[in-house]
């Protein structure tokens, strides 16, 4: 699990199970709280991670979340093997969404996911190929 200077966490992002959507970010949040990360940092990390997790859940058919906590930063990789993003630049625009009506009815798919990830993280890279899946990497500087 942990080397002396970091903590590694792996969480499964479930598929088709709304009851467990958001569990990965909730678990990371609990861990960061116990590690003593400042509440304001935890807030932006969990907002960004929640968005990425929900995207992997809705568009990616589930996947994995890998979190590395260092004393000065938190790195998160969310990986799915779903349909991928056709045009990342377009997807980054606020309000742009490809979510189905059904998903929107559940309160998701407002087109704020990627912008929220960008606004709450210090570094965001998206690696995606249509038909193969998406990797979202986010880095958060947490001081110390």
């Amino acid at each position, binding site marked *: 699990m942990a080397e002396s*200077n970091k903590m590694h966490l792996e969480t499964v992002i479930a598929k088709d199970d709304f009851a467990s959507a958001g569990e990965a970010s909730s678990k990371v949040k609990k861990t960061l709280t116990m590690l003593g990360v400042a509440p304001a940092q935890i807030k932006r990390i969990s*907002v960004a991670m929640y968005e990425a997790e929900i995207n992997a859940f809705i568009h990616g058919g589930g996947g994995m979340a890998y979190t590395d906590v260092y004393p000065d930063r938190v790195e998160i990789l969310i990986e799915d093997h779903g349909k991928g993003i056709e045009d990342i630049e377009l997807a980054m625009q606020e309000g742009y969404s490809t979510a189905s009506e059904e998903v929107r009815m559940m309160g998701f798919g407002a087109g704020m996911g990627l912008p929220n990830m960008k606004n709450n993280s210090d570094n965001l890279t998206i690696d995606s190929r249509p038909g193969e899946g998406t990797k979202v990497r986010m880095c958060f500087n947490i001081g110390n």
Partner: protein
Amino acid sequence: MTISGGRPAEIPAELLSKEKFHSVRLDRDKCQGCTNCIKNCPTQAIRVRNGKAVIINERCIDCGECIRTCSNNAKKAVTDSLDDLRNYRYTIAVPAPALYSQYRTARTRNGILTALKKIGFDDVVEVAYGAEAVSNATRQYLKENTLQKPVISTACPAVVKLVQVKFPNLIDHLLPLQAPVEVAADMARKKAEKESGFAPEEIGVFFISPCAAKMGTKYFPLKGTKSSIDEVISFQDIYIPLRGVLKTLQPEQEEDLATASIYGVRWPNPGGESLALDINKFISVDGIKDVVGILETIDNNADDKFGDVDFMECLACKGGCLGGPLTVKNVYVAQVIMKGMRSEQNGRYKVAELPGMDVDYHDYLWDRSPEHIPVDKLDTDMVKAFIKMEKMEEIRDSLPGIDCGACGAPSCVALAEDIVRESATITDCVFKLRERVRELANEMFELEGVMPPTLERKGVIGERTRNPDTHHEGGGFR
């Protein structure tokens, strides 16, 4: 010594020595060391040690859930005594509105208020009246300020402490205004100073309380000056003396003391505070488990629909203050009685609209914000916290995961945490203890077959009968 709840930068030494900052206590003689309270505590603030429950002060939010769930009545709230009336020359009773729900035989609010005077108070000021002032101030505040939505009511002190302990990111949602009891106590004190002719220290303001957490408010108010509350008397302690007077009180003896309208009187019911605000987009949540659930939902961004909710009432007790741990009547019986008490009997009460009290919300603002109390932090050094976290997970995985509570912690995860915090050991788990006993028994059995070299041995010379590979096996945590 640890302190629960927000506190001023400097705590007067005499308060610490009195240890009154924390109201929920244990009666050691009555405690049977069972697991009811540890299982029901919403902040996992209780452990059983040496056969008795122990409250972890910084985790306790004084919600009173353990008082309710203890089947041996071993949990109680420390409050003041009616005998303290003798310590003042002029006394004012400040009853919480839920008091009106405790007397089936009382005809009117004025009857109950008159009875308070008859048992020794010089004057009465209704908390319900203070509540209406807070409602007016809240309306103003919400009009002129933008807080994070939903704005969370701060009338319930246990909820404020819960946010401090578990939801630091929701501190920005808290309505930063004094609670009705504090406002009413201020009104009572000012009125007494003006009318009685006695010096401030000769005047005693007595809050009549259904609530365990209000005792903490008395010692650690969210304002710069001392609280205006001098003493807190529980409903349970005043129930019998007051009932005695009410039994013989004639209608013509009732003084016209009630000043609050229906808005203030129904404040302690779930939804009462919101209805007095005259807003539509509010929700009201009562019962500490439901409150924790809804705050978790908001904190986890799990439903952004909450951004549309203007105001949220959270009350630690099921049924609001009528279900307070220091009440006497069953909460539903209390609701029925309360309905009679808040109606416009014989046109006695002014119920048209919230009285236009001359209120400026600035007068009610907190002087300090409640601070985060980081009870979950494993270590101040993050690298040390990594190590503890890793060890904690390792221990958790080795535990049976059935959360039986026999170790004195509410769950296997909590025991794992206690072990890395060095307040418990692995053999506190009965299953791990049993494993350990079996290992030792096996070891003894093996050793029993070993003979000293000077005695005759079975087998070939030089070969030990015990297998050195198994000797140190399965040591694990000791």
